[in-house]
């Protein structure tokens, strides 16, 4: 099967999955419509006011009909308006998603080379250094992100006073207008991401190093950096990329948490605010958008891994 057909098949699968998961998100948030009404009308609203609000929000119709309406709008690029402040969901996505992607991109730029270095080193050398790095990565991966963030705040912002505690970004500006505000969020995400990536890369480097092919190269006198870069890395990269994309979900979660710790104006912060305010359309829109982003990443990961020559495996 050529690459194009492969990509098309995966794209179709992802589209079906997106529809199913958006329906699941809708169902999970729309089963208790009474609660959305009290969130908008206030708890002490009279029954008549509540009925009015319910009709105004269209919540008096059956859930299946509401989902069909919402999905039809979503296809046209209209995700409805949030309950709080009547902001169009797509506007929020358009202003906040780029900020989150910037955070993710910077994290990737910091993490990828470091993880490659550490993964190669520990996977090839083994021994004491391997144990130290592997154990620290395991420990770091087990600690919740917000705790890592809080400890970084304690050391860098409180004790050493070198960085601001929250990401104050000028009104109407982008995070790039205040680069120092990005340091702590990127640092936290990178620490967590590095722990995850190093362990995955280490495993596939160790696998690649144990292949007869690498043994042959070694016996032919290829050693050190040349062996690592020319022979091990190309073989280890495919499985590592595949494994890494499978952890995207965890990293999306980390990003949500980190944005909340530092009040970073990203999509995760917006999602948490929407959940706290019981702003159902906003939650549905943002959750669906995040699922779509995830599916795109998984698709790109599959294509990358295929280009890097990994076998498709058991179609996971």
């Amino acid at each position, binding site marked *: 099967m050529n690459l194009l057909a492969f990509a098309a098949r995966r794209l179709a699968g992802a589209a079906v999955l997106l529809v199913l998961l958006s329906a699941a998100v809708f169902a999970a948030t729309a*089963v208790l419509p009474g609660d959305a009404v009290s969130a908008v009308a206030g708890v002490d609203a009279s029954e008549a006011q509540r009925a009015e609000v319910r009709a105004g929000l269209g919540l008096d119709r059956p859930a299946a009909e509401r989902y069909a309406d919402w999905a039809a709008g979503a296809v046209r690029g209209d995700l409805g308006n949030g309950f709080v402040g009547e902001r169009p969901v797509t506007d929020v996505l358009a202003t906040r998603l780029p900020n989150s992607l910037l955070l993710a991109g910077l994290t990737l730029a910091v993490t990828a080379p470091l993880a490659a270095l550490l993964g190669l080193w520990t996977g090839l050398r083994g021994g004491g250094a391997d144990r130290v790095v592997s154990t620290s990565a395991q420990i770091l991966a*087990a600690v*919740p992100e*917000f*705790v890592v963030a809080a400890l970084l705040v304690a050391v860098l912002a409180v004790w050493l006073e070198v960085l601001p505690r929250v990401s104050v970004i000028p009104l109407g500006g982008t995070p790039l207008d205040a680069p120092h505000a990005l340091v702590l969020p990127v640092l936290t995400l990178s620490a967590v991401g590095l*722990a995850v990536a190093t362990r995955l890369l280490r495993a596939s480097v160790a696998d690649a190093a144990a292949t007869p092919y690498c043994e042959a190269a070694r016996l032919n006198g290829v050693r050190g950096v040349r062996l690592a870069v020319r022979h091990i890395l190309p073989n280890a990269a495919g499985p590592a990329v595949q494994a890494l994309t499978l*952890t995207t979900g*965890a990293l999306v979660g980390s990003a949500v*948490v980190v944005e909340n710790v530092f009040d970073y104006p990203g999509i995760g912060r917006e999602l948490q605010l929407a959940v706290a305010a019981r702003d159902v359309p906003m939650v549905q829109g943002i959750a669906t958008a995040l699922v779509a982003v*995830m599916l795109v990443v998984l698709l790109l990961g599959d294509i990358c891994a295929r280009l890097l020559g990994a076998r498709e495996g058991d179609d996971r």
Partner: protein
Amino acid sequence: MTTVLTPPRRRGRPVRPGTPGHRRPPLFTGAATLLVLLLALLGPLAAPHSPTAQLAAPFQQPDGQFLLGTDVLGRDVASRVLGGGRTIVLTALAGTAAAGAVGMTAGVLAAMASRRLGDLLVRCVDALAVLPALLVVLVLAAGFPGSAAALVAAVALATAPFSTRVLRAAADTVLNSGYVEAALARGDTRRAVLRHDVLPNIAGPALMDTALRLVASLHLTATAGFLGLGQGGAAPDWGRMVSENVPGATLAATPFLAPALLLVLLSVCVGLLAGRLADTVGRGTA
């Protein structure tokens, strides 16, 4: 999250007793885990003050009356620290138990069912696994605000897909083994095979999987507390204490450092034990 927690594969070195591969039992980690679990579960009984009452000015330094100072609302940090672990541990345990039950049932069913049905089940589970765990928690929290049961369900839902896959693979291996074939050939019912052959033989992988799931559940529950999901209000929770008190980090460090360090201790100890268990069981079955 599972990929993160799978134990590092060892390179084809044979393990001999006495080499570093044959390690001593993790006494220190075990003791530390036990200690922090006891603190979390029994702590509320030992609290010197009410964890929810405002007793003094906010962010007072530690003194004789308030051993760890006071928090953002002038509540006693020591009492809140003692009271704040129970919800996290209990929710994580409940979520793990639910995920384990669902994963075990679905995994064994998928393995015992016909190949087509089993594949279909696993595909559905895979679709669920695409959702980021925290997104499941957030969406369910939006649908069922302030519900502790919804938090448990979300934790279970987010972690069960991985269990299903692991246990299906384990049950598949057993079902394809010679002794199951022999048992079926001599006329044992599928029920008897399930009870006497399959379940005892997947107990090891199931235990290991549950331990890894517990690590993920603790992680998720603590994060949910931090984001203010689940049971709300003034009740103490280590995660929420961090989020409440980090804004005042420059005024007082203990109100957010104490719960943060306890969470580090808890997740690291449980994580190390689970990794160790996975290593041991993995080597036993490999």
